[in-house]
């Protein structure tokens, strides 16, 4: 794909992709809840936006996702905008480097995304929650590591990582499957640097 990776010139199509991405995140989370899945699946929209329109639109989708959550539900989401931005950027880069080609690479990429998300979230978790994530399983691990005198940053990182790993891998695999099923005309809509050919 010959598209410029860091283009800041947004087409209208890419911009209206952002509300759609935030909506998909939200619906993903609700469907996951409805099916009682032990995952959040609330970053599928962000990942799809990155795959379709690059890391910047992906990052914006992530940021706006958290701003909207912050405004309408839980203000703490604002600070985790940084994590969402990191997810958007990482998926965008992996995609445009051609690294998300098949299901195995998608799983591998999911691990990378989980790693990045955990690294970015850890300082926030430490500043706000003394290292916890609010997830019962993750926090149980955190408590047991703290009891064994692990350094707090490592315990906090592992707390976040075990929680993120299954979720981000599943999210990325699902996003990849959906992306693969998209019609070409739609994919083409977001790559803005086609030229008009004279007939």
């Amino acid at each position, binding site marked *: 794909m010959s598209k410029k990776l860091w283009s800041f010139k947004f087409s*209208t*199509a890419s911009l209206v992709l952002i*509300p759609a991405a935030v909506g998909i995140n939200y619906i993903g989370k609700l469907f996951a809840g409805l099916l009682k899945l032990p995952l959040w699946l609330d970053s599928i929209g962000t990942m799809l936006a990155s795959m379709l329109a690059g890391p910047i639109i992906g990052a914006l989708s992530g940021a706006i996702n958290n701003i909207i959550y912050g405004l309408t539900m839980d203000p703490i989401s604002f600070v985790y905008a940084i994590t969402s931005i990191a997810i958007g950027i990482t998926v965008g880069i992996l995609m445009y480097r051609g690294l998300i080609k098949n299901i195995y690479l998608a799983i591998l990429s999911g691990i990378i995304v989980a790693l990045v998300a955990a690294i970015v979230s850890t300082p926030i978790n430490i500043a706000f929650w003394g290292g916890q994530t609010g997830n019962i399983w993750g926090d149980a691990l955190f408590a047991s590591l703290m009891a064994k005198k692990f350094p707090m940053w490592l315990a906090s990182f592992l707390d976040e990582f075990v929680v993120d790993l299954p979720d981000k891998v599943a999210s990325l695999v699902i996003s990849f499957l959906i992306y693969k099923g998209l019609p*070409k*005309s739609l994919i*083409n809509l977001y790559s803005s640097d*086609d*030229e*008009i*050919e*004279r*007939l």
Partner: protein
Amino acid sequence: MAKIVVEGLKYRYPLSQKLALNDISFEINEGEFIGIIGANGAGKSTLCQALTGIVPLFFKGDYGGRVIIDDVEVAKSNLSEISLKIGMVFQNPFTQITGSKLTVYEEVAFGLENMGFEREEMKRRIDDALMLLDLYRHKDKNPFDLSGGQMQRLAIASIIAMQPKIIVLDEPTSQLDPQGSNEVFKAVSDLKKKGITVIMVEHKVEKLSEYADRIMLLHDGRLIDFDTPSKIFSKDDLKDYGVVEPVFTRYCKKIGLKDERGLYPVTLDEAVNLVVKKREHNS
């Protein structure tokens, strides 16, 4: 003068093998009501998009020929400027609501704000547009609380507020119930009375025949014919193009009932009048 001149228009969407528009030429005069008919895939939507500059300015692809509105070639202009000359209304009322405004009144203002109009001018235009589309009493409602027909009229009002001389409507009633469609047809005929050129893609040929001055028949990206409703629907090979004449015309064709010019009636009134005339003549 709001005249549309189309010369040798050709277009192929990106990634597509087939020409969506193939060597189309015609002219439309100010104040005309033009209907466009044709089977799915005939190129009706693409033609609408080419008239309003969406092709090739939004969808890129391969483009040839020219579309000229008011001596301006659309392919060399930009969509914001074009929107002051020619507006476009789409199929789905939902997707045309911006979603960023909380009232009908503010929704109509969206385009005017973007084009930098002064506040007083803006208000004047919004009032006019809402009156014309019979939406003024809903001006403080949330756009998403409107019925389908009202929402589609809001989309038209938002375009009309930009005061284009020409409005293109791509199947604006296809997703509405009969009541909503009637509302939209009435609104569109009011636009014509105001002197606005109306170009409308529509499958409901009975309705279209009542309003259109001329009808354009498209097939496979080509312009097959462009003439008055009577002439178009009196053709005997319409089935080959995947379109059907109004039910009145179909009936009269079956029983061989035509007027002195050899044309078949296309509306209920025309059919009734013709029968009455023939009956008088026979007795």
